[in-house]
């Protein structure tokens, strides 16, 4: 379990990191907490020529509330930081964060690393998709851009980030008025990653009528080759009271249009069935949390 040889640079500022990325491009890999990258390197499944360590760039750490009520979470914010932050009030975060990995990994693993790595079974992407997060990225050659979470994940371990692009921060919209959220996942017992994980947000905007909900967001991880929004379930639930019958009628479509993965831990049939169960439980959980 010894990685292949590599060069190492430590960036002390965002500018320095961007400069190093421009110089070394695809030969280099950013390293934040190292919790995904180092295991791959030790198994020699990843062999970057160079690591650019961004782990000590203070500007990328921490959580701020923006003037418009949104939260801006620096890409180097760790799971432990998120758990400790009073700003993180979403129920789905409270469900997910304490069950991700273990204390050591949560102390080192960053939110930026989790989504840039884009493991098709990791938890954070589903949470950000369900929250309609936006991702602020920057590179030396194309400057800063903001990408919707729904546009970010392309395939297994693949995102729209350019090789020289740095994820700066994650922006989380303020919740709608009357809302609730939950995350439910069935874990693969060895790794703790999701066999199927579903994040659900239900809410009412100004336009909502009576007891019905019009803001429904359901994101699924572990099931397809990248996390996705279950649009068919969302559509089926908009305008309903999201009660047991309407949930039961809607969740069957959670894998619609998705090629479900199968592996030694869960074949396609089981995984698809678990996506349905987790969707149902997440929606029930979100409903039970309505504020």
């Amino acid at each position, binding site marked *: 379990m010894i990685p292949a040889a590599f060069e190492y640079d430590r960036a002390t500022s965002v500018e320095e990191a961007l400069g190093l990325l421009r110089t070394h491009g695809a030969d280099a890999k950013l390293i934040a907490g190292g919790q995904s990258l180092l295991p791959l390197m030790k198994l020699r499944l990843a062999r970057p020529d160079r690591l650019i360590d961004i782990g000590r760039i203070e500007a990328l750490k921490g959580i701020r509330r923006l003037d418009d009520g949104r939260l801006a979470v620096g890409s180097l914010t760790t799971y432990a930081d998120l758990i400790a932050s009073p700003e993180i009030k979403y129920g789905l975060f409270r469900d997910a964060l304490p069950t991700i990995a273990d204390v050591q990994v949560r102390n080192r693993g960053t939110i930026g690393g989790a989504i840039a790595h884009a493991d098709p079974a990791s938890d954070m992407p589903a949470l950000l998709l369900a929250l309609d997060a936006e991702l602020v990225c920057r590179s030396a050659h194309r400057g800063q851009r903001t990408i919707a979470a729904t546009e970010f994940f392309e395939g297994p371990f693949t995102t729209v980030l350019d090789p020289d692009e740095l994820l700066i921060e994650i922006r989380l919209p303020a919740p709608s008025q009357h809302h609730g959220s939950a995350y439910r996942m*069935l874990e693969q*017992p*060895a790794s703790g990653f999701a066999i199927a994980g579903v994040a659900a947000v239900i809410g009412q905007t100004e336009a909502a009528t009576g007891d019905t909900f019009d803001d429904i967001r359901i994101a699924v991880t572990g099931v397809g080759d990248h996390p996705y929004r279950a649009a068919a379930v969302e559509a089926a639930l908009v305008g309903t009271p999201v009660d047991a019958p309407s949930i039961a009628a809607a969740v069957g479509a959670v894998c619609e249009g998705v090629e479900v993965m199968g592996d030694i*831990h869960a074949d396609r049939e089981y995984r698809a069935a*678990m996506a349905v*169960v987790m969707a149902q439980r997440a929606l029930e959980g979100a409903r039970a949390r309505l504020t």
Partner: protein
Amino acid sequence: MATELVGTPVKRVEDRRLITGKGRYLDDIAMPGMVHMAIVRSPYAHANIKSVDTSIARSMPGVVDVLTGADVPYNPLPMAWPAGGSAGIQNNVNTPRALATDSVKWQGEGVAAVVAETAEQAADAAEAIIVDWEPLPAVVDAEAATKPGAPQLHENAPNNVVFEWSVGDKDGTAEAVKGAEVVVKQRLVNQRLIPNPMETRGDIGLYNPGTDEYTIWMSSQTPHIQRLLLAAFVMGVPEHKIRCISPDVGGAFGTKIFCYADYVLVLLASKRLNGRPVKWVESRRENYQATIHGRDHITYLEVAGKRDGTVDAIRVKTYANLGGRLSTIGPGIPTTLYARVLSGCYRIPNVYAEVVGVYTNTAFVDAYRGAGRPEATYVVERAMDLFADEIGMDKAEVRRRNFIPPDQFPYENPSGLGTASGGAKIYIDSGNYEPALDKALAAAGYGDVAAAKADAKARGKLLGIGLSSYIEVCGVAPSKWIGAVGEGWGAAMWESANIKVHLTGKVVVTAGTQPQGQGHETTYAQVVADELGVPMDDVVVQHSDTQGTPFGYGSYGSRTSSVGMTAAIKAAGKIREKARRYAAHMLEASVDDIEVEGAEYRVKGSPDKKKTLQEIAFALDLAFDAPEGMEPYLDETSYHDTPNCTWPFGTHIAIVEIDEATGVVDLKRYVAVDDVGKKINPMIVNGQLHGGIAQGVGQGEDGSLLSGSMLDYAVPRAEWLPTFELDETVTPSPVNPLGVKGVGEAGAIASTAAVANAVNDALAPLGIRHLDMPLTAPRVWKAIQDARAGSSNGHGNGKEAKA
């Protein structure tokens, strides 16, 4: 004895060192000039080696040597325990060479080794070795491997059969099955496990060109045996020219009993490098590929009996997967240690077991915590449940009716323990099984289970309760039995201990056993402190180095307390006797008049005339005044060969809830009532039970063959386990002065069957009769789906195909 430490939960003396990071494990050892070895392993499960090109690796930075199979002048590794029995069974033996020369039989078999200045350089150069492989078809399933058309692994093993062995009365059992009121049949799979000690294996070889001597530091349970095997069987080096040292060993569970290729390689490499120390530390991935695995049985079971609950016969045919080549005692596990205790704690008059040892393209299989006995317990405990279900009788009641009654001991079971060849008769010497069952039933609330099931059902959960009444063969073993050709491994199994009382009165115990985390430094000290009447702080326990400890067969088979500590008690007795003689001399009394209490040696009737052990040791060490014929110094060694094994028993009960929607099995409660005889240290006993139960539960609930790392191989975690509810009955073993039986394996032996029975109990209302391990969520879920769809798919009915 005055101090009475035995029986108390003394804190473990090794823990300050081990918990504060001051332990010294293999990888903590560094030496001047040390180089590092990496082993190149086969990526194929089965392949011929056409050529090995080492030229690029040799020219890489830091590389000091490269070895291939052709460079190893030694014999293949030894296999010490062929399947025996009365009939002179043929064993088609193939063992690994230190490095494979012509072909590889499993993924992970070593083909070359690289030695470099740093471990990083060795790893890099290992990648640069080019092997020209000719991949061959592979087979991994033991039953399939014996069928026509299966890939053949070895020329001398047609149909991949290592041996065909049987035990018990074939005709009598056939009669009993034929005439029985009820016969239940079931195919049972006891899946392969990866033992996963926290510390992987590793070794450092050091050759001294000045003396022609070899020293090896090895993470091993058996340094003395390894010296013997390396010297006499593999390397042809005189035994006194090899020294084996086990530093702190971070868990072993059986995996570190055996003779491994890397021992040979580090010693050979050090010799080729004119005495540079060569270190090899196993990665977790290599541990999964190239250290032994456990279990892996396919068993066809028939259990026959009467509707009144009497079980009259058990007949099994078991395919035991032994891997691509044989490990050191691989064939002994599914034969002697499995089939001979198949009837467990039950008085089943007819038992017949056929065992086929099989080569497959998998890592070798050998003793893992419990070794054979968990496999036997799984079979007989599933048999009891299946039989109870068939006749509609309560599962506890069926067990109760078939227990060997307390007045039947000593009991010779029908699978040949009593009739084993060789001089010794092994019999179950003691037991009282019902009280343990009753205690466990009461603790688990067995009577209220129907209500608990209804309550669970209302929450969408299926609740199940599973019993496992087990016995264990511990304290292995009388040499006459285990050494008998055709039964055991052709070598003895006594233990040894030496005790020295130094001039200052401090006591040094050296033992031939070898701890791997069990706390022997504490328990030996408790025993010897009591025997000599000194404080525990005055006793130090040393072990693990063939230089400086008496020969011992090592620690496994829960034998250290029963066999090893009896040797220590004997040695302490000799110390007391000599101290008494010297006290008589000092006090000018006759030896017969000296009475000993604790550390005090007094003249009977004159309590003021006395000497302490410390005073005696001081005088006898200086020896200014020793009487004629008395040698100076208190220094005594004893060897102990046990007259019989020990027979722990108990009942474990698991209560599980299954989430019907996901198939996830949640272990809600775990009750264990164990009878391990007297306890030297109850806290250590509980620790051993906890660990054993966790490992056994882990097998019931999980495990996978395609798993190369902990990312894919589920090791049980504390958070999945309930608080274990432990209780005891105490039936002292009659074979040793402490009355102890051994506890290292009990938890692992009982718990797998308890969990499997509980899950099957939970699934029974759906019409599912038997679901095999591993009881993973997808497997349980699929069984539930199939049952609901009305298709039994092999789960639901008992009319399984027979072997």
